[in-house]
């Protein structure tokens, strides 16, 4: 199941890249040696205004809409806006939501608005947050963000986040912009996230997600793999996929192209 999803994502990415490639082919300045160039663009996108997420209701409405407008549901990228959500405390399972949308031919590519927590869990599902449109505050935020970004290349080493105590069910630890090192176990139902690598010198029974801002060059090391989910830059494996030779063993997880690769940690 993960593999098909990863493959889907890969296809999607390739498709997007191809589009970008076509545009660039028109520009005469192109040098054959550079394989790509980043350019700003403005796109008109459909937004999916989410009021409440409940698997059954959402599924029902999707299939109803599919009947009414089948042409819309054809590899349509959408931005999920979260400003109108009725209950902001309720957790939205963005992985499930994205998966269902994709099954209907609608491809969420990002979220906008919502609380920081929601944006974080969307990011975990591979949906980055777009800046809010129109509000005067956001333009200021943009300015400061840009200032920070331009300062970023000179950044000093960010120290790793080190957690000494066990991470319990229901807890979430996020190491922003740095590695995460855990000395105690990660329980079932707990989630550890990092923009960088994750090292766990104890059993991992919950979820570990490295490179959640899309850094594919991140790794997860753990002393005893009993995880619910392991993910690197959005490519993940769930417990079912992890059963087998490495279960209960010390492992090293990394990305090999589009494939999440788990190997034993042997010296």
């Amino acid at each position, binding site marked *: 199941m993960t593999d098909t999803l990863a493959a889907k994502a890969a296809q999607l990415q390739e498709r997007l890249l191809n589009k970008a490639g076509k545009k660039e082919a028109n520009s005469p300045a192109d040098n054959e040696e550079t394989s790509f160039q980043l350019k700003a663009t403005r796109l008109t996108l459909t937004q999916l205004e989410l009021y409440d997420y409940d698997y059954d209701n959402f599924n029902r409405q999707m299939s109803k809409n599919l009947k009414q407008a089948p042409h819309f549901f054809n590899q349509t990228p959408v931005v999920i806006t979260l400003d109108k959500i009725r209950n902001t405390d309720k957790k939205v399972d963005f992985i499930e939501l994205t998966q269902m949308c994709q099954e209907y031919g609608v491809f969420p590519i990002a979220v906008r608005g919502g609380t920081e927590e929601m944006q974080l869990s969307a990011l975990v599902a591979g949906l980055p947050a777009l800046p809010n449109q129109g509000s005067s505050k956001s333009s200021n935020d943009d300015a400061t963000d840009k200032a920070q970004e331009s300062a970023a290349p000179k950044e000093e080493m960010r120290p790793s986040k080190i957690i000494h105590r066990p991470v319990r069910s229901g807890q979430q630890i996020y190491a922003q912009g740095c590695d995460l090192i855990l000395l*105690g*176990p990660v*329980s*079932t*139902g707990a989630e550890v996230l990092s923009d960088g690598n994750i090292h766990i010198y104890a*059993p991992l029974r919950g979820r570990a997600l490295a490179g959640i801002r899309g850094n594919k060059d991140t790794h997860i090391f753990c002393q005893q793999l009993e995880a619910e989910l392991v993910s690197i830059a959005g490519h993940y494996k769930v417990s079912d996929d992890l059963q087998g030779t490495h279960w209960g063993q010390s492992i090293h997880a990394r990305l090999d192209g589009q494939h999440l690769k788990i190997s034993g940690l042997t010296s």
Partner: protein
Amino acid sequence: MVAKIVVVTSGKGGVGKTTSSAAIGTGFALRGLKTVIIDFDVGLRNLDLVMNCERRVVYDLINVINEEATLSQALIKDKRTDGLYILPASQTRDKDALTVEGVQRVLDELSGVFDIIVCDSPAGIEKGALTAMYFADEAIIVTNPEVSSVRDSDRILGILQSKTKRAAEGREPVKEHLLITRYSPERVKKGEMLSIQDIEEILAVPLLGVIPESKSVLKASNQGLPVILDSVSVAGQAYGDAVDRFLGQEVEHRFINPSRMAIFKRMFGGE
């Protein structure tokens, strides 16, 4: 004098929080500590039944919080054990009646008089449980050898680290103790039940005691007699050991291996 505040909690319901609060609270008093047990299960009052003082409840915790009664009016003195008092919960109100400020005032007042305050937490992770644990210095996590109970205990341990007064003030974290109840060594041996090692490995909390599954627990609850007073029962003895360990003594764990009797019984088909 500042009393030590101990919360007895679990997340999951029906694992033996009230039974354990009653037994351990009584154990403290038996060892000469002036003890009060507070029932935080507002709306689902039970501690009074286990302590056999239900016919003497006039005022309760919520009355004291709302200043409708004084502490001395609400505290019930235990008839069997010296130095033991019970502060019952209100049966007619709900958990919203608990306020952090109110509870703080009650605890401050009790703190001047008692050595140890045992807070019997309600199940769940909502207001009642959060208020019961908020002021705790130490916590006894009651767990059954069963996966859902262990996971809920794990959740509660996380909350103890993040949502208590000690956590808010950045002081030394709440000291955690693991109490395994309803343990049946025979069933563990048959692979039907999680072992002590399994639970310790998942929760990573020092083990305070293991209370074996015993008919005497239910009997004691129904008779309104804290099981620790039943010195013949293995559960009563195990609670006694747990209290001694809590107070710093080194006591070897008993009743954690299948008993000879049980093996004989199984051999001859009796149960």
